[in-house]
């Protein structure tokens, strides 16, 4: 039954490669994006996917690590969006303006409706 | 130059840049955050130097609690250095 582990290892490396690619995209986006909110969006969305993929790949490489890496993935899934939303809200309240090309400002609309 | 030296040198250069920023910037909030970055990089260096106990302690205290305490203190006083 050695070939099952070989296939698992290959899939694990494929997942790690996908994850590293998304992390690379996230860091390029961090440099390219024009304002805080766009940067935060790349830094959270792409990083969450990349980190989850890398963790799943590591779990496939050695099946003993699978529960641990799944738990770590669950906590990244729980904490990263919350932190990003808190940061975005704080920077909006601190008065950082949107980029001039932005067209949607849901937060402001909601404020005006109240 | 092996991997140990390379990673250590990159981290040390980033740490010293953050330390100089914390020394020279006029905004005390930015200085406190730069100090947190120094603590975080030092905790990674502790991990590289095979001290995981100290690395956990430094990451949770130096980069978490001490930064929060300093930000509370800045909130009670004023933000800009004259």
């Amino acid at each position, binding site marked *: 039954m050695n070939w099952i582990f070989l296939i698992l290892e290959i899939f694990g490396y494929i997942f790690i490669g996908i994850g590293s690619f998304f992390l690379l995209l996230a860091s390029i986006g961090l440099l390219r994006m024009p304002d805080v909110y766009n940067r935060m969006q790349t830094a959270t969305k792409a990083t969450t996917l990349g980190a989850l993929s890398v963790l799943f790949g590591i779990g496939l490489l050695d099946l003993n690590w699978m529960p641990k890496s799944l738990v770590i993935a669950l906590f990244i899934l729980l904490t990263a969006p919350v932190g990003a939303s808190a940061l975005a809200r704080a920077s909006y309240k601190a008065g950082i303006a949107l980029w001039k090309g932005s067209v949607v400002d849901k937060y402001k609309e909601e404020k005006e409706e109240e | 130059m092996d991997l140990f*030296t390379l990673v*250590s*040198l990159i981290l*040390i250069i980033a*740490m*010293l840049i953050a*330390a*100089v920023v*914390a*020394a020279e910037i006029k905004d*005390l909030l930015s*200085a*406190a955050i730069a*100090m947190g970055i*120094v*603590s975080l990089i*030092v905790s990674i*260096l*502790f991990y590289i*130097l*095979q*001290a*995981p*106990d*100290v690395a956990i*302690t*430094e990451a949770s*205290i*130096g980069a978490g*609690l*001490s930064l929060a*305490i*300093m930000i509370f*203190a*800045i909130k*009670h*006083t*004023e933000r800009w*250095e*004259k």
Partner: protein
Amino acid sequence: MIPYYYLASVALIVIGIYIVIAKKNLIKIIIGLDMMDTGVNLLLISIGYVKGGTAPIENGNYTLYVDPIPQALVLTAIVIGVSVMALALSIVIGLYKNTGSLELDEIRRERK
């Protein structure tokens, strides 16, 4: 070979000393003291490092370990450092509430 870890931690200590000497803002001075603390911790840990050694947790496979004594020293020193820093910051907040300033010159002028 240059021991760059020692030089980096000495540089941290020296930047802390420079802040304490040259700056007049009290919170900046406390940041400098914290930086000196961090530098001394890094110096102690890097002196205890042994090339090729692992962390001093015995799991049967390794025989070469790093020095455990500096790690035990630094482990407690970090916690003491943050609590002493909080004490110093609370004293600074007290000074600010009484004199209305964080700069050493103005506080000294206030006393006269």
